[in-house]
């Protein structure tokens, strides 16, 4: 039972320093979840006077390294190979483990995308440490450099604080969409160390037969979202939702039942089993405000809801609660916005 051993803590945890981030990328740019992690890593590293180390695998990493630098990375470690164009669990996990063993980070942050979750526990088992999984808040206690992670439990009914006192690196998978994307600093540079690697033949037995990219709406990147729910009453209602989204320059979201009914595709779904969004403006029309929807949108800055039920639960989560029929309210909104957008009509002078 050579591999089946317990989680032995390292003796010298003071040796572990810096915050490492696993960087996932697609089509030459870093995915949003990883940008969130670089941002968080920067905040944590600054608190304890340490560095942010990004690690990434791929077939062309220079642009990724450059982008990581502009978001706050100090040292970029890459392993480049034509075969690393596609993600494979084992060679990825092994290489990242090598980086961890060499650089001994105190903290390792991985965004909990599907790729991230596929990787994180393999890495943690390999380096014999624990994972705080699916976290939504992260902070550091500066004296002991102890990571304080919080994760929702029981369908987000409670939030549990997870600590990993004796094992290193303190490893986290974070729920995508839980943090803002950090401010980009154009021209900011990081130290880049990219090595060429050769993938062991045996790993190629894991054969990627086909990969079909799908046009997917990424609502986690939207600043303005107008969502429709069952209150629309008919599939056609999404025309009006779309119209409002268009005048606002935003995207269309939805609650789960209307997705289940086939009124709109799944990639529009917001909520626990859909996307977690952080819009600057979120409009919920004909949505009751059940917790499974709310967890996916409540981090938005300004929330407007439209509901004809004066007691609708969504009111509590809204800055503005339009208590009216959405088919009356939305056309008025569209009209009023159009007038002001053009700078004519009833708008007050903006100075």
């Amino acid at each position, binding site marked *: 039972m050579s591999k*089946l051993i317990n989680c032995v803590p390292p003796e010298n945890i003071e040796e572990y320093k810096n915050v490492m981030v696993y960087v996932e990328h697609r089509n030459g740019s870093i995915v949003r979840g990883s940008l969130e992690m670089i941002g968080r890593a920067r905040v944590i590293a600054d608190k304890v006077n340490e560095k942010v180390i990004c690690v990434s695998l791929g077939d062309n990493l220079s642009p990724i390294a450059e982008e990581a630098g502009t978001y706050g990375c100090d040292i970029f470690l890459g392993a480049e190979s034509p075969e690393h164009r596609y993600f494979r669990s084992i060679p990825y996990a092994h290489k990242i483990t090598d980086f961890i063993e060499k650089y001994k980070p105190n903290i390792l942050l991985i965004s909990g995308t599907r790729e991230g979750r596929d990787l994180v526990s*393999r890495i943690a088992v390999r380096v014999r440490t*624990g994972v705080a999984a699916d976290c939504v808040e992260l902070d550091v206690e500066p004296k002991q450099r102890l990571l304080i992670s919080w994760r929702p439990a029981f369908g987000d009914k409670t*939030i549990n604080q997870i600590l*990993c006192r004796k094992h290193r690196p303190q490893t986290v998978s974070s729920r995508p969409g839980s943090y803002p994307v950090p401010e980009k600093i154009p021209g900011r540079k990081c130290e880049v160390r990219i090595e060429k690697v050769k993938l062991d033949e045996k790993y190629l037995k894991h054969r990627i037969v086909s*990969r079909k990219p*799908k046009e997917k709406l990424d609502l986690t990147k939207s600043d303005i979202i107008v969502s429709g729910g069952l209150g629309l009453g008919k599939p056609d209602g999404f025309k009006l939702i779309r119209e409002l989204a268009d005048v606002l320059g935003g995207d269309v979201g939805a609650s789960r039942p209307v997705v289940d009914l086939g009124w709109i595709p799944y990639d529009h779904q917001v909520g626990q*089993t859909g996307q977690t969004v952080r819009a600057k403006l979120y409009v919920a029309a004909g949505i009751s405000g059940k917790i499974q929807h709310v967890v996916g949108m409540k981090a938005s800055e300004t929330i407007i809801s439209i509901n004809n039920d004066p007691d609708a639960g969504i*009111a509590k989560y809204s800055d503005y609660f339009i208590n*009216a029929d959405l088919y009356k309210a939305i056309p008025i909104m569209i009209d009023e916005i159009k007038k002001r957008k053009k700078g004519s009509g009833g708008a007050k002078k903006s100075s």
Partner: protein
Amino acid sequence: MTLKIIVMMKQVPDAEEIFIDPVTYTLNRTAARGVINIPDENALEIALQIKDKVGAEVTVISMGPPQAEEAIIECMGRGADRGILITDRAFAAADTYATSLTLAATIDKIGKYDIILAGESTTDSGTGHVGPGVAEFLDIDQVTYAESAEVVDDKIRVKRILEDADEVVEVPFPVLVTVLTGANIPRRATLRRKIDAIKKGIERWDHETLGLPPDWIGIRGSPTIVGAVKVPEEKKRASKKISLEQIPEMIDELFEKGIIKREDGA
């Protein structure tokens, strides 16, 4: 040689019936019915489909309290051949490391296997980390987020769904596959099979059966601990009630605050 498939199944409290005690912040488990974790049902269904097509011996393993036996019997009622309940007070409060270790030790003791199937995540603690953790302990390959899987010679061919792409991969045995929630419609158990399962009985293994020292498992074997529990703070919102007549005023405010921008950027 018959294929050997192992399904990892967890009994979880029914999500619809979860009740959190407002004072202690703990889960009132007695109130919630135990059910099979949803994606684990989909994982079992894939195992049974493979069994129907090419023949296989399907073993369900579950780590949990004695009442998880019910869920194993249900799986056998659907067509699983063997059930093992890994149960021991000493397993309690295991994190993903200790859980993965315990399940991997169980699989190691079972011995021969070609395919291990697990759910993508559990609805009660939902990390999705146990499947890959087990694969790492056993030093075998994995394919996560499967929507469907079929056996082609000595390989498994899996369609997996990622955020931005659908992927088809082929991996030789042994391999661990995690299955998406709702990947298929699980069959129902038959009464006859359930009665047979109860007659046959399920095996119960504890830490001694597995040869795992007590400090490797449960809370003692877990590198992470729960430090504190809180109820999420809700950001206080104004909930300003707006009538149809007040909409222009609201829109004015949104422009003033820069939440909506004019075409000229002002």
